[in-house]
């Protein structure tokens, strides 16, 4: 072993060979220490676990259980359709089945299972010890579970939604869908979507910041690139559906007419909002699976992926273009032909980056020496099925063909080819590939092959024939058909195929069970992979790496096969025993280590917060609005407690990450803090929601029948003026607080007097924050006054309803701003904020900056558009 190298002059510089650092005196003691700090508790205490491996596995297992429920629903559907005039189920029951099948598979299986994989794998692949916000991961999981249970409970009790997984209005409105079925969908799915957005913020920050030193963007594993784009898409794609669900639920519960044509609403607004989410959703599901494919194929081809940069460019391109396709679901609703051609062209365009990836995979196999192991078999299944689905997708992108095939079984066949081909087959490959990582055992090649062939043959028998059924004219969502139609043999064959597929899945489950119980030991890196998740013993420990590696290439394990042993010996970054959970954060582009992120430990707070949110949503479902308010207050209290318990009262002294090299923790400054990135990405999702709301306002204004409204917004200068002055004043006060707190930041070495001065400026900052809170409260009240005094009766017309929603959006932001400013002011006085620990005033200022902008836009749109009219 080489002698330790002297520390470089700049503490952020990376020593040329950190591997040369001496091993700590006792690696065993290091592992004991790490286990004590990172270990997951057992029994009931395990519910308080926040570790990414545990949360990721919970997501995966829960999603697979929901998959089984969705699968049983699929079998029931196929049983009903197996013969003509079948009396197995009535239309209402059948409607619930297909609605819940789609809902469960899309919202409770596909997205969560992929998020679970990402949560489990990403820190390991990136050489980190955990995700950026472990407690947010746990909160995200509990929200997902409670939202899912809400939906499944409705199914079990016979009150499940029955309007299709896309819940088109007016069918899903209160008039045609009375009862709570549609409410269950809207509230349960929103609950699960909140979870997905939290997960997206978590993943995007982790990928950009928490990587191994030296892992630049150019060296990032492809799976991380795919997940980065996917998470960004989730931030932009899910808010339109969340907004649509809120609007529809408000219409159902309180009669505000957003989608009611008789009162100036438009059902097509729902379709726009739904598909603004729904089409990117297809790629949100496909991209992570494609990322798994791009990770596995090089391993089995025995060579690096061909066209790394082209793949990255393709993935980013898909992320954008997939947002330009939503109208292709609406070709038959009466949109001008030219507009249809725009979206038809975009729909064809998206095939190009997809094809680039497929060619890169084929080229990698062609140039390598592929080995046909079990995961590879599923990957071949993926290539065949997905490419077929892609071809029928290009057919449907052509407007004249879509007019013929719209709402037929052809579309059902196409979407299953794309989703099962593009997501389920790669997922099954991934399960076989990474299960040794979780269990430490290898799968059985023979039983897994049987399962594959049954699933593959069964799938194609079911859905290949369904294309023909659709072309012969069989519509979707019908529970019976006439024997005269000539669809009997096709449907029977599809049903037989469906059951063959189900047998395949049962075999797969059996194989997984046997594998976990009696598979042979996997050993380290059993597939000979090059990525970092295999640089650890399996099953993985809770802390992933005893020391964090320095990365110099895209396949660190291929370049340094002994890397795992070096990491286990604590010879790399953060290899000294620690008393808290730590991982390194890096510069986004270069991968240069910049800070040590101190992560929170296990906690009941995420479960408590999700339970409070569950109370809130359940009360909304049963229209118990007072208890719902109590649930919301409870949620708020838990969140405040959660936030209060973070941070520290002393300035940071740095952490020794290598002998002779110290880095400050993320609490020093704000730009490197996960909280700063988290706020920015949360605001990005917020902007998407706001944009969707503005789109809804302008869409109704322009397109909806029944406009102009009978009454415009009344001119009320007092509340308008107070709101404007107060919100701008609050933003200015928050900015002053930030500036005051930062005033001492440029002092290079602070004396005792400097410290006293800095403390004084922090106290002064707290006063400005208190002023911001006061002004924010005034703005909130003025906006409320504006609703009461200026807006026409809210149930009278869609104009009044959507105008009120815009002001409510502004009010929510000012109200949150009040809480945030007040909270940070208290934190300043309690000693959690200093010149160095300056994140919180920065967050308050960022929030108020955005809030002021949003309020200006809202008030401008509301007051200027009628004038323009």
């Amino acid at each position, binding site marked *: 072993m080489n002698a330790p190298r002297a520390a470089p002059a700049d503490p952020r510089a990376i020593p040329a060979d950190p591997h040369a650092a001496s091993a700590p005196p006792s690696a065993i003691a290091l592992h004991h220490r790490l286990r004590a700090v990172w270990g997951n508790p057992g029994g009931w205490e395990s519910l308080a676990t926040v570790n990414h491996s545990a949360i990721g596995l919970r997501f995966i297992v829960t999603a697979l259980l929901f998959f089984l429920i969705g699968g049983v629903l699929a079998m029931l559907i196929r049983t009903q359709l197996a013969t003509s005039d079948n009396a197995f189920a009535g239309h209402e029951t059948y409607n619930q089945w297909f609605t819940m099948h789609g809902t469960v598979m899309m919202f409770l299986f596909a997205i969560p299972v992929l998020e679970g994989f990402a949560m489990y794998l990403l820190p390991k692949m990136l050489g980190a010890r955990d995700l950026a916000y472990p407690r947010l991961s746990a909160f995200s999981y509990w929200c997902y579970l409670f939202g899912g249970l809400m939906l499944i409970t409705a199914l079990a009790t016979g009150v499940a939604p029955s309007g299709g997984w896309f819940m088109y209005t007016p069918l899903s409105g209160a008039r045609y869908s009375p009862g709570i079925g549609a409410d269950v969908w809207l509230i349960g799915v929103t609950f699960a979507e909140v979870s997905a957005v939290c997960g997206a913020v978590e993943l995007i920050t982790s990928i950009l910041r928490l990587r191994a030193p030296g892992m630049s963007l150019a060296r990032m594993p492809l799976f991380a690139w795919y997940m980065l784009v996917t998470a960004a898409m989730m931030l932009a794609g899910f808010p339109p559906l969340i907004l649509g669900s809120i609007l529809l639920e408000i219409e159902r519960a309180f009669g505000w007419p957003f989608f009611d044509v008789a009162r100036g609403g438009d059902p097509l607004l729902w379709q726009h909002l739904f598909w603004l989410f729904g089409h990117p959703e297809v790629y949100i599901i496909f991209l992570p699976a494609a990322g798994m494919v791009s990770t596995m194929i090089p391993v089995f081809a025995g060579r690096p992926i061909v066209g790394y940069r082209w793949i990255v460019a393709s993935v980013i391109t898909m992320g954008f273009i997939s947002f330009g396709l939503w109208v292709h679901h609406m070709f038959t609703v009466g949109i001008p032909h030219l507009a249809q051609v725009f979206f038809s062209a975009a729909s064809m365009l998206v095939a190009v980056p997809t094809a680039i990836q497929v060619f890169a995979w084929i080229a990698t196999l062609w140039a390598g020496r592929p080995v046909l192991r079990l995961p590879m078999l599923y990957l071949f299944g993926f290539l065949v099925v997905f490419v077929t689905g892609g071809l029928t997708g290009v057919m449907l992108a052509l407007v004249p063909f879509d007019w013929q095939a719209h709402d037929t079984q052809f579309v059902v066949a196409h979407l299953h080819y794309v989703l099962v081909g593009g997501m389920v087959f790669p997922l099954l490959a991934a399960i076989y590939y990474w299960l040794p990582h979780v269990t430490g055992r290898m799968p059985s090649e023979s039983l897994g092959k049987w399962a594959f062939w049954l699933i593959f043959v069964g799938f194609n028998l079911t859905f290949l024939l369904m294309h023909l059924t659709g072309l012969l004219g069989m519509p979707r969502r019908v529970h019976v058909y006439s024997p005269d139609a000539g669809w009997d043999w096709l449907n029977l064959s599809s049903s037989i195929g469906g059951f063959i597929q189900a047998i395949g899945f049962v075999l797969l489950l059996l194989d997984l069970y046997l594998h976990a119980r009696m598979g042979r030991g996997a050993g380290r890196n059993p597939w000979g992979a090059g990525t970092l998740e295999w640089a650890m013993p399996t099953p993985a420990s809770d802390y992933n790496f005893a020391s964090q590696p320095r990365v110099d290439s895209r396949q660190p394990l291929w370049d340094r096969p002994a890397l795992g042993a070096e990491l286990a010996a604590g010879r790399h970054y953060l290899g000294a025993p620690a008393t808290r959970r730590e991982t390194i954060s890096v510069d986004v582009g270069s991968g240069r280590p*910049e800070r040590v992120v101190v992560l929170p430990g296990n906690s009941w707070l995420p479960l408590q917060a999700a339970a409070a949110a569950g109370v809130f949503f359940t009360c909304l479902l049963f229209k118990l609005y007072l208890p719902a308010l109590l649930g919301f207050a409870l949620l708020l209290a838990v969140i405040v407690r959660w936030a209060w318990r973070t941070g520290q009262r002393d300035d940071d002294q740095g952490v020794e990450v290598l002998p002779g090299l110290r880095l400050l923790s993320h609490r020093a400054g704000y730009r490197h803090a996960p909280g700063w990135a988290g706020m920015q990405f949360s605001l990005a999702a917020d902007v998407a929601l706001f944009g969707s709301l503005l789109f809804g306002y302008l869409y109704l204004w322009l397109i909806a029948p029944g406009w102009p409204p009978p009454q415009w917004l009344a001119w009320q200068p007092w509340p308008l003026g107070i709101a404007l002055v107060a919100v701008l004043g609050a933003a200015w006060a928050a900015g002053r607080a930030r500036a005051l707190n930062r005033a001492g930041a440029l002092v290079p070495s602070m004396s005792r007097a400097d410290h006293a001065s800095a403390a004084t400026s922090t106290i002064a900052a707290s006063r400005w924050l208190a002023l911001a809170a006061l002004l924010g409260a005034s703005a909130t009240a003025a906006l409320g006054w504006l609703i009461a005094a200026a807006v026409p009766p809210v149930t009278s017309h869609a104009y009044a309803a959507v105008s009120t929603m815009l002001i409510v959006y502004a009010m929510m932001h000012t109200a949150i701003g009040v809480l945030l400013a007040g909270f940070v002011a208290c934190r300043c006085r309690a000693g959690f904020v200093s010149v160095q620990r300056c994140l919180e005033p920065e967050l308050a200022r960022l929030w108020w900056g955005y809030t002021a902008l949003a309020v200006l836009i809202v008030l401008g749109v509301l007051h200027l558009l009628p004038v323009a009219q």
Partner: protein
Amino acid sequence: MSVAADSHGAGRKQGRGRGLLWASAGLFGWVSCLVLLYAGLSIACRTGSAVAIGEPVWRGLLVATWAAHALLIAWLAMSVLRSKRAERAPATPAIDTIEARDAGPRADHDAGFVSRLALLLNGVALLATLWIGFPVLVLPLCL
């Protein structure tokens, strides 16, 4: 033993995170072009102004929107190309330090990756913009 002195991290460039956003600028332009073409067409057809003002005027506006986006994205691609060429030019002798020697090749490699990616993405965005907009030239507006 030394500790990083820049406690705010504000005085330094934030790596190539923003570079990544900048690399995607052309694709943001593509989104903007699609949205404005669709919105403009909807306004023209729904308000009846395509008839009142005249279809050629609206078509001209849509073509101008399309062309402006294409030109903007082309300019973005050209500026990336120029900066990439500038990166290739022989650098002036740098101060020779251990840190520079350590970080130099890696920094060049990373910068090269992001700039090539930016070039690719802007090129793709330009082609995509041309592809989705050309029907404006040939199809009736409000059929």
